[in-house]
């Protein structure tokens, strides 16, 4: 794994999955590189879980294929499983089993033996902060702790790819922050992470890129800025002045390259179609025109804005 990989860690190629008349996944393609976190977002019933289950080899595509570390999920699911950690949106715990026994079972199930298994369990307990609860029965764990345990189980065999379906669902704010930090650390150690969540603010902070899916179709893939740039060609700029705002407003209205110019608190807001260079030119011209600019701010789109803009709330 030390050498540079010639293939993406996750590669989805023209994936289709139908259930009767319902096209749950419709021609989806994307890639995730090592060390990258891709947020997979979409409304309920969009096909996120179905496509994640296909990646986890728990379901089969009607047509198309997906590859984990270069192995087909259809033809070589056994090889895929050795490289993949899948965290579904449910816990899946056993009765009469404590934290250590649970992790030990999955370590054995992944073929870890002797010291290798002991070290893996130790690392996972340390990583997830479960070391003090190792003898506690799983039934007695809080939801946040169970989620940590599931994350531990997912990474017990040191997979190069992790697929997480709604890992932050039902967690309190502290647990969410901790989970976000853990995911960030996973990416730092070179794992490719595909993560779905409804909590977009959480995703925005941890994901390098996002893929937006609706009605089984992939609407956009890229960083939040790239996607918002694709769908929104004009940036909203807010400028604050010292002194005569009216004069500044008139100066801006007189320009042809600005749209929707309006007064805004102690400043003026307008839409500008140019890139960052032309924004810098505009600022320079304003100063040369004698306007006393104290703040020049281009509004950035949040992931929520992008999501609402891209999706239409359709369900199937």
């Amino acid at each position, binding site marked *: 794994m030390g050498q540079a990989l010639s293939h993406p860690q996750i590669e989805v190629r023209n994936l289709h999955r139908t259930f009767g008349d319902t096209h749950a996944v419709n021609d989806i393609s994307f890639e995730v590189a090592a060390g990258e976190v891709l947020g997979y977002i979409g409304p309920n019933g969009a096909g996120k879980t179905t496509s994640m289950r296909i990646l986890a080899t728990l379901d089969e595509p009607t047509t198309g294929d997906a590859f984990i570390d270069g192995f087909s999920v*259809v*033809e*070589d699911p056994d090889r895929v499983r050795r490289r993949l950690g899948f965290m579904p949106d449910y816990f899946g715990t056993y009765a*009469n*089993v404590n934290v250590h026994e649970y992790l030990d079972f*999955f370590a054995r*199930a992944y073929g870890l033996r002797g010291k290798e298994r002991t070290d893996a369990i130790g690392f996972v307990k340390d990583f997830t902060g479960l070391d003090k609860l190792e003898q506690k029965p799983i039934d007695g764990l809080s939801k946040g702790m169970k989620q940590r345990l599931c994350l531990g189980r997912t990474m017990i065999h040191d997979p190069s790819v992790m697929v997480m379906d709604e890992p932050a669902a039902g967690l309190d704010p502290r647990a969410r922050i901790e989970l976000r930090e853990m995911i960030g650390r996973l990416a730092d150690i070179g794992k490719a992470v595909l993560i779905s969540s409804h909590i977009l603010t959480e995703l925005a902070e941890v994901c390098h890129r996002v893929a937006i899916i609706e009605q089984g179709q992939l609407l956009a893939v890229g960083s939040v800025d790239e996607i918002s740039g694709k769908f929104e060609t004009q940036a909203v700029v807010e400028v604050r002045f010292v002194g005569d705002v009216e004069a500044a407003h008139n100066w801006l209205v007189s320009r042809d390259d600005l749209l929707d110019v309006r007064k805004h608190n102690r400043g003026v807001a307008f839409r500008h179609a140019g890139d960052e260079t032309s924004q810098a030119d505009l600022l320079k011209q304003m100063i040369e025109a004698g306007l006393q600019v104290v703040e020049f701010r281009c509004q950035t789109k949040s992931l929520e804005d992008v999501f609402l803009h891209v999706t239409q709330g359709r369900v199937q």
Partner: protein
Amino acid sequence: MSAAAVESDAIENESTLSARVVAWLQPWLVRIEEKFNYVGDYLNPIVVKETRQALKSRQFVFTFVALLIACWLITIIGVAMIGPGIYYSASGGMLLMWYYYVLLFPLAVIVPFSAFRSLLTEKEDNTYDLLTVTSLSPRRIINGKLSSAMIQIGVYFSAIAPCIAFTYLLRGIDVLTIALLLALAVLGSIGLSMVGLVFAAAAKQKYGQTLISVAFVTLLLICFSMSLRGATTFLFEGMQFVQDWEFWAGMSGILTAYICIFASSYFAAIAMITFSAANRSTPLRWTMLLHQVCWVGWFAFAMFIDSFDEGPVIGFLLAAIYWFVVGTLLTAEQPIMSERVRRALPQSLLGRVTLSWLAPGSGTGFGFTLANLTTLLVLAVPTTIFFGDFNWGTGRTFCYVAAMFVGWAYVVIYLGLGRLFINFLRRYSNISLLAGFMVSVILVIFGTLTPVIIQSSSRVWQNAGYTWLQVTNPFWSTVNILENRSTAVTLWLLPLTLGVAVCVILLNLMGMARELRQTRIALPGRVVEDEAELHPVVEVATSPWDQPDEG
């Protein structure tokens, strides 16, 4: 020296001694623990997990304690009832019967049901998906579940073992009988656990799981009551036959049937939880071949012992029904081979000729069934002629031979037409294995019942017996020939069914050829890399020139 000082010295010496013993034992204990850990590493993870779970579960503790209490009660009440006769009477058989009844309940009901629930609960509690995405193969999952059941059997046995030994001391029962009874109980329990795992693997939907649970519990209770009756009969009436070779021949026959059913159930359970690109069919086809060999072997043995001339025809017709049932499953398989299966297809001419029929696919399935049934026909017809007096067109032997040919033809016709119909439907819809199986079965039911209904509702033919209308009815037609009711009918039905069967084979030939023409494909580059990483080839020097340079 005071008494207190002496006592203090003694205590000190004693503690020093125990410390010495502990110190001497410590490295041994550590070594033993290391050995256990090492062995534990190679145990099936499911066995380790389920043993841990079982030791903490109330159900297991309750059953185990209840078994012990029942054994104590039987011992106390039994000894009290026998009274002084315990010194001279042969009362071991009676007590063994009661202990056996107590043992049979956990072995025939609790253990198989636990195995069934163990796999089903994985599905209900959403842990099955987690288990599936691990490196555990379907075979290891089934092995693990079955081994857990066997461990439970061992624990129940250990509880009852002293009581069984006690019955031997009471006389009236020999070691052979005890061993035979216990062996039957163990094999029965393992077999039922295997069936339970097949049932659990087959239960996919919630409503199906409930239905299957009820059906399985009913089956277990029936088996339990049958085994109670069987054990009683054997203990009080069957023991006298233990000396006879027929008894052991019968037991061997039962054991052969057990092995055949167990092997089928084992591979069926594995196939049901294996991903679809894998080869799920070939192991099952091997077990079908095993069935065929055992069937032929036992019939040959029966013919050798008692040369009854109906033997081959009965054997063939029963086997034809078997091959129709398994043939419907084989011909309902998808006609497309996955790339994964194609990577392992035989390459040599001999391999392709002999082993291609074992590769998955509906065409190869039809060919495999046809080949097996024809082999049986080739064996059964000369045997019938050899043991009977064959006269062309007349006589019992002719009827037996004709019935076998007609039986062969009907199986070929219905399987072949079923296969063609399923493949036609597959152009418009996704037909699963079960749906395909149902299509073939419905086709036979339609072909059988339709003429019967038409004939029974017609005033002209109502009482006419067998008529040409029944030509699609395989059962009436075969029985009609077998019973030699009408030579005329036999003489037109035989060429007609054989002619249609040959036509159906020709119609299926293209599909069979398409599947048989498939050749091995190369492993993908990434798989080759992975294989090299997993199983690195160690270069071995084969000549002096291969030795590394020492200079």
